[in-house]
């Protein structure tokens, strides 16, 4: 994301913290479509994704003062708020429907067929040494597991079912993948 946009979003968040409603409205206009795309991909249900987006923006209004520009990019902060809300909601629903899920070991993955899949998303506009590039370089199993977990909010158990691999294998793919990812990004940082 370009620096000018980051600076503008950080300014809108700072003004939101001072209860500036126009800044809050502008922040919503600028970021809601990106954040909604992310939420929709994780919860896969429009009405629920809209409820969660609403909850997230209520939280953004209330906690804007806790955003520290020196510590994270504004979009990173906003994405984290939305993703964690979506993940919490998915996990709550998974608990509610645990018995149903056991009968159907194939997790529901009904994203519209013209939507890019996780693997394709990795390749979209990936700069060399960017996180997408680093994920792309991982071994097959790790790459698939991390992309599915990130883009679709799958748990270890759901990943195992989806990839038809033992739970332990999937867990170690995720763990090793994240370790390699860190190494790759640190190396990329050193090159830059």
């Amino acid at each position, binding site marked *: 994301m370009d620096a000018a946009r980051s600076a503008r979003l950080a300014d809108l968040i700072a003004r939101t913290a001072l209860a500036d409603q126009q800044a809050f409205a502008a922040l919503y206009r600028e970021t809601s479509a990106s954040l*909604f795309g*992310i939420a929709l991909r994780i919860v896969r249900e429009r009405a629920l994704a809209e409820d969660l987006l609403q909850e997230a923006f*209520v939280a953004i209004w209330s906690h804007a003062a806790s955003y520290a520009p020196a510590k994270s990019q504004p*979009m990173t902060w906003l994405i984290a708020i939305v993703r964690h809300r979506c993940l919490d909601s998915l996990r709550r629903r998974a608990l509610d429907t645990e018995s149903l899920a056991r009968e159907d070991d194939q997790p529901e993955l009904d994203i519209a067929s013209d939507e890019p899949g996780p693997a394709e998303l990795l390749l979209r506009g990936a700069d060399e040494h960017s996180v997408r590039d680093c994920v792309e370089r991982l071994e097959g199993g790790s790459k698939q597991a991390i992309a599915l977990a990130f883009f679709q909010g799958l748990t270890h158990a759901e990943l195992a079912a989806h990839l038809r691999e033992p739970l332990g294998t999937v867990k170690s793919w995720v*763990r090793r993948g994240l370790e390699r990812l860190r190494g790759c990004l640190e190396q990329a940082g050193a090159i830059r």
Partner: protein
Amino acid sequence: MNLSHPDRRARLQRLASEYALGTLSPRARRRIARIAARDPIVAAALREWEWRLAGLAEAVPPVTPSPKVWTGIREQLGLVEGGRTDQRASWWSSLAFWRGLSVTGALAALALGIALVSLRPEPAAPTIVVLAPPTGGPAIVATAIPGTRDLALKGVRPLDVPAGRTLELWALPDGAPPRSLGLLPASGTIRLALPPGTLERVPALAVSLEPAGGSPTGAPTGPVLYTGRVERML
């Protein structure tokens, strides 16, 4: 679980990365979020991983949400279009108020009705308090959050709080002793729920330096570091 201990670094990295990725169990997620709230090393590890993975999320194509999401947000927060809030609508639109009104008779109702018309359009302007020392720039900026009784305080520069002491926020009513509104962290940044009507009735706030745990007497005992007037921005 002391995750910031050097021996546990690898474990912290693993938990933080899986937290950001989203594969931790709900219990583990809640637990690590709670630890991060009081351990800055853990918080920094989580932030670092959120940052590393955020680049993935930016590849997701945007989708415009329905307009009812924004309407819902505004309603939930009590915000109205045009940047005003409708906190003041609540008392005169309440059933109890009109019930009381019905016994005062039609003429009185008419008179009150006229008075209400003149009261109603007053917008609830943002209320802020800039807390500053007698000489020098602002130390803490406080903003009333519309639609709530909450005051959001933000330290705008490092505050010098000696070990074993704490900052305490006071309401300074006209002609009455100061009333404690709560303790502040050394950062000066916190959100506090105020007793109803505090900012409407009190002309100024102050911050004093008190022993840890707050003033033992219920009145400020240490030096008053910062004061500020309650200002309504029109």
